[in-house]
Structure formats: structure tokens, C-alpha cells
């Protein structure tokens, strides 16, 4: 049995080696996708264009503005002369934010009173607006802390050591983009593997059905389950190589800490690949054309990504959808990836995820073997 599966595997690898496009695609596309997602899909906001109306013209107001610019988050592109300028530049979408410092800003600060600053955001891109607002609040808080410390230094020097918390509070803000990438990259690795396995199944299985070679295979002593394994083996190998390539990039290039157990990640990867292979083969054996298989794959991938917790937290989904996430293998693999990377977890903690993926694999493989038998009649 294994000899026949091996024969088929050798044949698949020969075919892949002959197909230059496949070779490039199998290595380059996953890496490209990882880079694109890691860079494009972080929650970092930079260089928000800003209109500024400074009616105070004080040293304090200038200092405040220079802090904004120095943070790298904002770029002052319009110096407004009156409030009308501000409205016009927001309306014409010239700037993403506008800031107004009223006369008396410095005076209020010196008196130790609240010194209001008015900020207007273009809410069309509400995500950017929200994050940019966070940055401004953080910069204001930083400045306020500085002032507080300075004043305290004057009035009661011995109390200042009690204050550093004010500054510490900024830390998570400044690392926010980095953290989001750390959180995102392991998830993207899982998503890429999912899509890759789902695409390869139809390519390898339906192609044989379309070209008629499947019939020639069926009349050999090859059993249906051996045929499925022979198809699954090369996809599995490719998936495994890719996941580890991407993990290596995450560690070497994106400097993600990997503190968990390698065997947990390996077990998770193997079981995840098995369960997605089950889906991929099920799609392929129940389709008669590649287009049909891809169309069904597409309708599977979108919810699989949405329900996996890659982007939307599962805990905040409606209960019915939460139930649906239990049949999504990516849901479990994401936990394995994130926890081995970021929390340093091992098999002792991750066994429920591994078990769930194992169960899905068995069910899906059996289903695809049945679908394969049925498809012949």
C-alpha cells in the first residue's frame, strides 16, 4: 500500500518540478503574501496630514506642535489663518485632521489649569481617525505629565519619584503597531497555509479527472484511499515546507519571539494540514471541474477566515457564529501559532486544539473518501 502511495507521490513531485510556474508559485507567493499582510495590515498610522491653527503663538504652543511632528504620526501640511481655513481643508479632503490652539493656551498651562486643544478628524476613514486620536491623546498626556513633573519639581521635589507611572502608561501605545504585527503575523501564516492547501487539492485531483488520467489510475490496483493519500502527500509536504519557511521569516525578519515548544507547533501544523487537506480533497472529489472546485473553495475560505479569529475576536461574535467556529480548523491553528509564539505554550496547554484538529481530520478524510467513491458512479 505504501509503495503505491509512494509511486504516486513521486509522480506528483515530478510533475510539479516540470511546471516552472508551480515552482515559483509555491515558494514565492506565500512569502509575498506574508510580507504584504505583515506590512499592509498592521494597525499603525503614520503621516496623517494635518491643518493647524495656532492662535496663541506661544513657546508652549510651538512646543506642543513640534511634539506632534516629532512623533512621526502627523505631518503639518496646512497652516491655517482662521477657522474657515480649517473647515475648508477638511471638507476638501486635503487633510486627515485639523488642530486648533486657542489664544491663552500658554497662560492656562502656566497657571496649572486645563488648556483645551480642539482636534477635528475626517471621519470618513474612521479607523485611521480613531487611531490618530489615540496618538494625540497620548502625546497630550505625555506633555501634561512632563508639565506636572516640572511643577512638582518646583513645589515638592521629594514627591517626583512617585510619578513615573504617568510616563510608563505611554509604553503600550508606542509599541502598539509592533504588538499588532506580532499578533497578526502568526495568524497570517495559518491563513496562507489554508488557502494554499485549498487551492492545491483541486489542481491535483480535478486536473486528473478533466484530463481522463483518473480513469487510468482507477483501473490499476490503486485503492481509493491510497489515491487520496497519494494526492494528499505532496500537498502536505508543500504545506509543511511553507509553514516552516514562513515561521523562519517571522522569526528572522519580523523578529517575533518564539518561546514556545517546537513540538507543539509541529504537531499543530501537521494536524492543521491534515484537516485542511480533508476539506480540500472533499471539495475536489465532489467537483467535476476546477472552476467548480475553486468556486466552492472560495465560498468556504471567506467564512473560514472570518470565523477563525484572525481579524475579529471570536468572543465578540454572536453565539450562533461562535458555534460555527468550532468546525473551522484555522481557529485552532491560530491559537497554536499565537500561543507558541507569544505565550511560550507547549502541548500540555494546547492539547485541546490539537485534539480538535485531529478529530476534524479523521471526519473530513473519511467524508472525502466516501465522496470519491460516489463520484465514480
Amino acid at each position, binding site marked *: 500500500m505504501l509503495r503505491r502511495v509512494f509511486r504516486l507521490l513521486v509522480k506528483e513531485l515530478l510533475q510539479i518540478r516540470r511546471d516552472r510556474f508551480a515552482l515559483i508559485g509555491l515558494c514565492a507567493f506565500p512569502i509575498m503574501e506574508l510580507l504584504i499582510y505583515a506590512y499592509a495590515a498592521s494597525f499603525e498610522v503614520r503621516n496623517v496630514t494635518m491643518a493647524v491653527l495656532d492662535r496663541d503663538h506661544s513657546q508652549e504652543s510651538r512646543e506642543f506642535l513640534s511634539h506632534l511632528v516629532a512623533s512621526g504620526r502627523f505631518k503639518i501640511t496646512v497652516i491655517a489663518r482662521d477657522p474657515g481655513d480649517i473647515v475648508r481643508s477638511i471638507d476638501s479632503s486635503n487633510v486627515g485632521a485639523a488642530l486648533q490652539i486657542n489664544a491663552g493656551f500658554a497662560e492656562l498651562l502656566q497657571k496649572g489649569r486645563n488648556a483645551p486643544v480642539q482636534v477635528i478628524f475626517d471621519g470618513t476613514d474612521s479607523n485611521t481617525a480613531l487611531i490618530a486620536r489615540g496618538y494625540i491623546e497620548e502625546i497630550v498626556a505625555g506633555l501634561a505629565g512632563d508639565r506636572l513633573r516640572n511643577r512638582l519639581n518646583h513645589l515638592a521635589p521629594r514627591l517626583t519619584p512617585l510619578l513615573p507611572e504617568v510616563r510608563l502608561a505611554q509604553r503600550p501605545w508606542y509599541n502598539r503597531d509592533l504588538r499588532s504585527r506580532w499578533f497578526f503575523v502568526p495568524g497570517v501564516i495559518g491563513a496562507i497555509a489554508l488557502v494554499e492547501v485549498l487551492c492545491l487539492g483541486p489542481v491535483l485531483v480535478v486536473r486528473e479527472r478533466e484530463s*481522463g488520467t483518473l480513469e487510468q489510475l482507477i483501473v490499476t490496483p490503486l485503492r481509493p484511499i491510497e489515491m487520496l493519500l497519494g494526492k494528499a502527500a505532496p500537498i502536505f509536504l508543500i504545506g509543511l515546507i511553507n509553514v516552516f519557511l514562513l515561521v523562519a521569516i517571522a522569526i528572522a525578519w519580523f523578529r517575533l519571539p518564539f518561546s514556545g515548544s517546537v513540538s507543539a507547533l509541529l504537531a499543530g501544523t501537521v494536524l492543521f494540514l491534515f484537516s485542511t487537506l480533508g476539506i480540500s480533497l472533499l471539495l475536489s472529489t465532489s467537483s467535476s471541474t476546477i472552476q467548480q472546485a475553486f468556486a466552492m473553495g472560495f465560498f468556504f475560505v471567506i467564512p473560514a477566515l472570518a470565523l477563525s479569529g484572525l481579524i475579529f475576536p471570536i468572543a465578540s461574535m454572536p453565539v450562533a457564529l461562535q458555534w460555527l467556529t468550532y468546525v473551522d480548523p484555522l481557529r485552532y491553528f491560530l491559537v497554536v501559532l499565537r500561543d507558541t509564539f507569544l505565550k511560550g505554550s507547549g502541548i500540555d496547554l494546547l492539547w485541546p486544539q490539537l485534539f480538535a484538529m485531529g478529530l476534524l481530520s479523521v471526519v473530513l478524510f473519511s467524508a472525502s473518501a466516501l465522496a470519491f467513491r460516489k463520484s465514480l458512479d
Partner: protein
Amino acid sequence: MTPGNGEDAGAIRVEGLTKRFRSFTAVDNVTLLVRRGEVLGLLGPNGAGKSTLIRMLCGIMRPTAGCVHVAGINVVEHAEAVRQHLGYVSQKFSLYDDLTAAENLRLFGGLYGLGGQALVARVQWALAISGLDGKGDVLTRDLGGGLRRRLALGCAMLHRPPILILDEPTSGIDPMLRRQFWELIHQFAAEGVTALVSTHYLDEADYCNRLALMSAGRLVALGTPHELRYAAARGDLVRVECDAPVRAAEMLKAVPGVHDVAIFGNALHVSITNMEPEAALRASLEARGIACMSIEAIEPSLEDVFAQRLGSDSREEPAD
């Protein structure tokens, strides 16, 4: 389960075999015995159900009803036990285009359980009979149509099956290469291999020991080419060249003593009994104002057999 339950079991025994796709009956209650060592031609126009019948013989498709024994094994129940006894070449060319000839042979040889020296020797043999000696490293897609077909045949014979089933193995290749292909089939038959070969080329019928004619899913005639020619055609056959063949055919069917009329281009083949053909036919045609160019007695061909068996209106022109 064990192959070969005596001589009379035949190599392939088909009883009441039927395949329906929804309401459409592709193979309709076919009963057929293929004897050991014979070359049986399965003839029929496109859509007759030849491929569907063959798929059921090979265990690729489950019959709706009926049963099939190949080498004494019930195919429906033990499809996997039949594999080693059967070589199959499907209608579509079905080796891997992106593998070389030798890689294809090694793959299929390996799947049939060959290995080591035995595999090497069989691959050499298959390359030799396909006319590909020393060309084992050529990609299959770069081979000509005739060579590809022979390679597929060599591939099906790697494991020395006693039974060979070929589905239109010669379609789309030129007549010279077709003859070479048939010579190969007979070479195997001489070694005791039973072959069932489907074709829609009537001119290949004479390469077969016996013929099974299929039409619209049914087996309509079975016999040697000679038997079919003479037993099938009742009485004499004359060829009539005339104006308006369609109208003439309608009319002649009503003439007493005329069994059957088939249209072949602008001529009619008319089978008749116990009458002076020429004068009677000419007279009836000219009475209706149809000019008659010539009337001559001819030998029945398989086309006539076909026309007669299938009925002239449902008949499809064999593509050639």
C-alpha cells in the same frame, strides 16, 4: 473469486447489463460473451453506449442492473480483484503529458506491483513495442498521435493481463498507423490475450474475429464479419442511383418485395427478394417521375448491415 472457472465461462461474461443516467438509458440490457483469445470488435456510432459499457466492464462505473464477470470474477462485487487481469486503454488519451514515456511506464508498472529488474525489463519491452526504443526520455506531450496510442497500449500490457479492453484506441490517427495498431493487438491475441476493442470505424471491422453491433444502448447484432454481412442482408442488394433519393426511398418502401431502403448520399441501397429487380424498380420510379440513372446488384457491406439493423432514420453517419 478465483479466475478461470473452466473454458465456457469465457473471458468476459455480461448479462442483462444496464446503465441509466437519471431517466436516460445509456446501456440497455446487454448480454454478451467474449470468448477466450478472441478479438471482439464493439461497433457503434458515437453515443451508442460503447464507452459506458466498457467502463462498467472495467469496474470504473457501477451498473444500474445486470452483472459482469471478467476472468471469472464478478466485477461489481470484487472490482479490485479484477484489476490485475485487465489492461485498459480509455477513449481519451490518458497518460501524463508532462511525464516522459519511461516515467509513465514506470508509474503504471509500479502501481501494478512491478518493481526492480522486472519493472526495468517490462518498461524496455513496452518502449520497444510502442516504437519508442531509446526515446524513453521524450516528454509524452511531444510524441505523435500514433506513438502515444501505442505507448498507452504498451502501458496497459505492462503487467501481462490476459484480457485487454480498448476504447476507441485508434480514433483520430491516420489509417496507416491504425493498421499498425491492429497488428499489435493481433500480436497479443496470438499470445492468448483476449481483446475487446471498440471503434466507430466500420473499416476496422474486418480486423476482428467477431463483432458486436451497438445502437442506442442496445446490442443489435453479434457474429463474425462474414456472418453479419450475409445472414443480416435478406435477399439481394441493389444500388440505385436516381434523382430525389429521399422521395424515392419513401416510395420504394411501399413496393412489394422490397425489405428495406437506405440512403447513402445520392444513391439508395435496396434489399429485395424474388423479383426481377432492375425492371420493376425502374418502372415504379419512373411512374412517379423520378429519373433513374443506374441500378446494379452489389455485395452487402457492414454499412448496409448497420443501416438495416439500426433503421435508416435513426442511423448516424460514422465519422471518418
